[in-house]
């Protein structure tokens, strides 16, 4: 399907990573801050010797995610979109530990995959990725808002494709869906901002 996409790339490759790479950094620093002093552990969030201050499974997953997003960056920069998609699909296929951070990483990965597929005109694939990402995040979060935004772009592209195909009614319906999704994305991100700045300016 030949699709004209009236959109600007939402984020650079780095934009996708800044969200949760910060988390990985924090977790890494937390781990680095721990040091063994004889039989005790000092400098950790939990100083109990038997404590596990950082879940190593989550750390391993986030580290792998970082590496695969980096690989996708490199492939995307060199014009190898299929290679970038393949790298991100490997991440999606990995066994994922149950953790909110992991869900956010996967939601973000789904959003990036959807954008890559959208840019290649794979609207159905992009839609599947958006749905997969939305299953990972509930409530007003940036990740959910971003997925809704991308889904709105998918419907916008679909409307354009229908117009090109002379399917007026389908185009109108797709455009209406796009507007609703983009409106919802605006509302979700508005709530995200309200929550993030709940204490801002009041002190």
């Amino acid at each position, binding site marked *: 399907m030949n699709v004209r996409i009236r959109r600007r790339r939402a984020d650079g490759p780095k934009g996708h990573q800044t969200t949760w790479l910060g988390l990985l950094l924090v977790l890494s620093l937390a781990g680095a801050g721990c040091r063994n002093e004889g039989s005790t552990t000092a400098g950790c969030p939990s100083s109990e010797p038997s404590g596990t201050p950082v879940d190593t499974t989550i750390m391993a997953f986030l580290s792998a995610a970082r590496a695969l997003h980096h690989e996708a960056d490199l492939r995307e920069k060199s014009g190898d979109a299929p290679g970038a998609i393949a790298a991100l699909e490997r991440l999606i296929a990995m066994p994922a530990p149950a953790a909110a951070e992991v869900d956010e990483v996967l939601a973000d990965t789904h959003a990036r995959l959807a954008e890559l597929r959208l840019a290649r005109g794979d609207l159905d694939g992009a839609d599947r990725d958006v749905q997969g990402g939305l299953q990972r995040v509930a409530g007003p979060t940036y990740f959910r808002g971003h997925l809704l935004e991308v889904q709105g772009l998918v419907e916008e592209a679909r409307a354009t494709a229908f117009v090109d195909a002379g399917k007026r009614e389908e185009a109108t319906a797709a455009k209406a869906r796009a507007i609703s999704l983009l409106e919802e994305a605006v509302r979700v991100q508005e709530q995200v901002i309200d929550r*993030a700045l709940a204490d801002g300016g009041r002190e």
Partner: protein
Amino acid sequence: MTSHGRLGAAVLTLLLTFPLTMCGAAAPAEKAPPATPAGAPAPPAEAGPAQSAYPQGGYPAQPGYAAPPPSAATGAPDQGDLAQRRAAARAELQRAQSDLEAAATDCAAACRALSSMERATQHLCTLVADPDDQKRCDDAQHRLAAARERVRSSCGTCQ
């Protein structure tokens, strides 16, 4: 008070408290050896801890001026009070640092959400084809303007 303000106040308190602590530390300890050699005349009995053989901080005593009274008489804080104030200042500094870090994180999240909001609004408004669509575009733009102002007032500019 903002996080920056609280941090500044905590730092200021620490800066003011530590010199006081250092002054307190200059006083001889209870178990310090006598400053005068054996056989030398003993210092006056009324000389308190603040009038030891060691020079005191500040200007030297001038002849003809009254000697400074003992520290207890000046109402200067004792060691326990200083320790408490120092601990409180440290705790306040830690709280302020935490608040500052949280504020930076919150602003990063707000800026990221604002970018997504801007993109969504831009696309929404390019799809306007009738008055109802225009109304929805206008509503989104009003929300965006309010959010932008909120982020600007709380965080300044987004990177």
